[in-house]
């Protein structure tokens, strides 16, 4: 009887202690989650504002803030997108796939980004293979050279490369400046140092034994690269490709310089141009900006893990 009582008393004591701990934890935990929630909300506001502005009537932009949508959701309309994508009486710029339209810019951006990404990934993988598994002398020196190029600002190259393109034209008659290949060539060059660096760091983690086993199995360098190293290096290649893709997609300066005079624009050039027209139409800008972020955002969310890995490989190592 007494022991039963004592047990009961102990149980109560434990319950009381637990309650005390909980009470001490709960509010602070709640406050913490509240603060972090506010930060998250604050961080989303710009994106939300862009989205809402793009769905509000153009005329309301200067009259009331986007947040009035919260009390008047009927404001929302698809009109901006219609005017931007299809020819309507309100369209102020080319529509459809005409040069200078948003969809044409989307295609142009993809036509630059995809080759630039594929080339950087492929060439970096090849170079990294050579640096890690090759046996030629001077590999370390070459690698250090590439590390040195990692942070070189692209400003140091734009004028000479523009001149290079010009002299290439006078030599061969082939126009490079102002064309998509001209932009791609430049993007690839400035994507390579990081690409080679990232791939090399990953490849050094592949056991040399595997390559030797392959050599004994009868594989030549190309087979080793294709059948052993590429499959194993896939995660790094994915990181690099996604990083490079987002980087090129979002570039403004290279397109600004090397696409100069071309009727086709990249998305960033499209937006940049809009801010510089006399009547900067924010409805065009906001709807255009929304269209421009769809692709990188989708890639970002689909492959966030790889993207983060690319970021880490570039920064921490």
């Amino acid at each position, binding site marked *: 009887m007494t022991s039963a009582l004592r047990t009961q008393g102990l149980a109560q004591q434990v319950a009381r202690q637990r309650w005390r701990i909980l009470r001490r934890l709960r509010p602070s935990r709640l406050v*913490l*989650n509240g603060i*972090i929630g506010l*930060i*998250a909300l604050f*961080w989303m506001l*710009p*994106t939300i*504002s*862009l989205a809402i*502005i793009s769905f509000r009537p153009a005329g309301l932009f200067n*009259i*009331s*803030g986007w*947040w009035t949508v919260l009390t008047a959701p009927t404001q929302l309309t698809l009109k901006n997108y219609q005017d931007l994508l299809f020819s309507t009486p309100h369209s102020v710029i080319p529509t459809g796939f005409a040069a200078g339209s948003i969809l044409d810019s989307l295609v142009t951006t993809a036509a630059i980004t995809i080759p630039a990404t594929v080339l950087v990934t492929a060439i970096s993988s*090849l*170079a990294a*293979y*050579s640096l890690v598994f*090759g*046996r*030629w002398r001077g590999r370390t020196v*070459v690698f250090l050279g*590439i*590390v*040195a*190029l*990692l*942070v*070189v*600002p692209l400003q140091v*190259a*734009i*004028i*000479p*490369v523009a001149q290079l393109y010009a002299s290439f034209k006078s030599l061969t008659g082939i126009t490079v400046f102002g064309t998509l290949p001209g932009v791609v060539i*430049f993007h690839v*060059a*400035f994507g390579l140092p990081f690409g*080679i660096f990232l791939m090399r760091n990953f490849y050094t983690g592949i056991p040399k034994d595997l390559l030797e086993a392959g050599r004994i199995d009868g594989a030549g360098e190309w087979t080793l*690269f294709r059948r052993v190293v590429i499959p194993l290096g896939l995660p790094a290649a994915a990181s690099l490709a996604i990083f490079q893709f987002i980087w090129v997609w*979002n570039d*403004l*300066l290279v397109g*600004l*310089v090397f696409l*100069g005079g071309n009727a086709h624009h990249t998305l*960033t050039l499209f*937006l*940049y141009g809009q*801010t510089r027209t006399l009547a900067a139409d924010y409805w065009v800008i*906001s709807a255009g900006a929304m269209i*421009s*972020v769809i692709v990188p955002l989708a*890639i*970002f969310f689909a492959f*966030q893990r790889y993207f*983060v890995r690319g970021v*880490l490989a570039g920064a*921490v190592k």
Partner: protein
Amino acid sequence: MVKTKGASRLPRPDASEPAEAVRLPGGRWHRHLGSLAFIAPGAIWLLAIVGYPLLETIRDSFYNSDSTRFVGVANFKTIFSTADILVTFRNNVIWVIVFPFFVTFLGLVFAVLTERIRWATAFKAIIFMPIAFSATTSGLVWNSIMNIDPHVGMVNATLETVSDWFSPPGLYPVNTSAGQTVAALAATGLRSGPGGTLESTATVAAGQTAKLGLVGISPTALQMIGAAQAVVAPPAPGRVSGLVWRDFSPSHPTDRGTVFSDEDGVAGLSVTLLGGDGSSAGSTVTDSHGDFTFTGVGSGTYRIQLDSSNFSSGFTGIYWLSGTQSLTPTSGLSQTAQALFSIPLVDLSMIIAYLWIWAGFAMVIIGAGLASLNREVLEAARIDGATEWQTFRRVTMPMLAPVLVVVLVTMIINVLKVFDIIVNMAPSTSQANTLAVAMYDYGFASSPSNNGLASAIALILFVLVMPVIYINLKRIR
């Protein structure tokens, strides 16, 4: 290749050995050639588009605008004596000093915070997401967020709400910061009074009426307030009455002083009766027809005052993207010194926008650094009696220092080259320009372009990142 000689120097094992055995294909130099070929595309590409142009830029920076004549250090002299370019230096200095520090701090705070919540993955994605946007897009978004008009810009709208709480605007606000004046509203029987008021030009006495006409009153505002057609109030003994109306008739656009039927009264206006000594003898508010009446008025003459609160503009917005408003006092300085030592508001605004973009990057890297710390060391600190803060301060931070340095350095390089956000967020001022913008302007946007000057600026950018190249090389070795 030299190495193959070693092979041919080998002693022949015996005479019966077939001679071709020593010269079989697939020898080591062959193998090396194979893998050497793999680096060729990358190497050629880099040499042609990065290596050679770098040398060319160095050369060009000592040549004239079309790279035809050697000019020595003239371009650099120009750079350091041209006010516009010096301003870009100032901006780069501001960016480099302010931004990396804050972004690292934010990243650290976020990284630490996310370790304590269950929805860390979602939070990280939210903070990290802006990096998927182009800086162009982000610049445009923040351009609208920082818009001066509280009806458009979120920041100013928030400030307006706060400000209105303390000093609400009048019904008929006059935006003095935009150059409007209260005096300009006076049309009939009114003159400018003290402290942003209007008062009647004529004096009135009991039993009289006053007709006070205003212009520049927005019909929309009147409509919203519920104003009705202006009616002249009849005089009555012992009373001072009157009308305040919108003295603009669409049917008689040039006629002032006559009350037409298509003119509305200015409703809801605070009116004060001023005695001869200027003291208040009573106050009232106009009705929907614009009429007001003061009863029980004694003898003597009075003036009628339209209070300043009617015209108070309230909060009209901060010009966040201003290149001339400085955060530092600049009075008493020479013009050059003002340009060099002011911190324009636009820089701060753009840095805030840039923080929004890059805080996620810092958070992810620092978060990875935190995750890779040896948990046992942190636990040991706990056991040793350190509080959470002490553990963080004395153990976590020192162990994390290398990662923080990496973030700092990466961000310094990043902002040295900052371009997209500047040209998109603050296209209306040149006061926000950075070296990268100046380089683009001189090299491509101006006509004729100045290759020498642009190259010299590019070279300066390159020299500025050279310490980082050195650090990187040392770290890799």
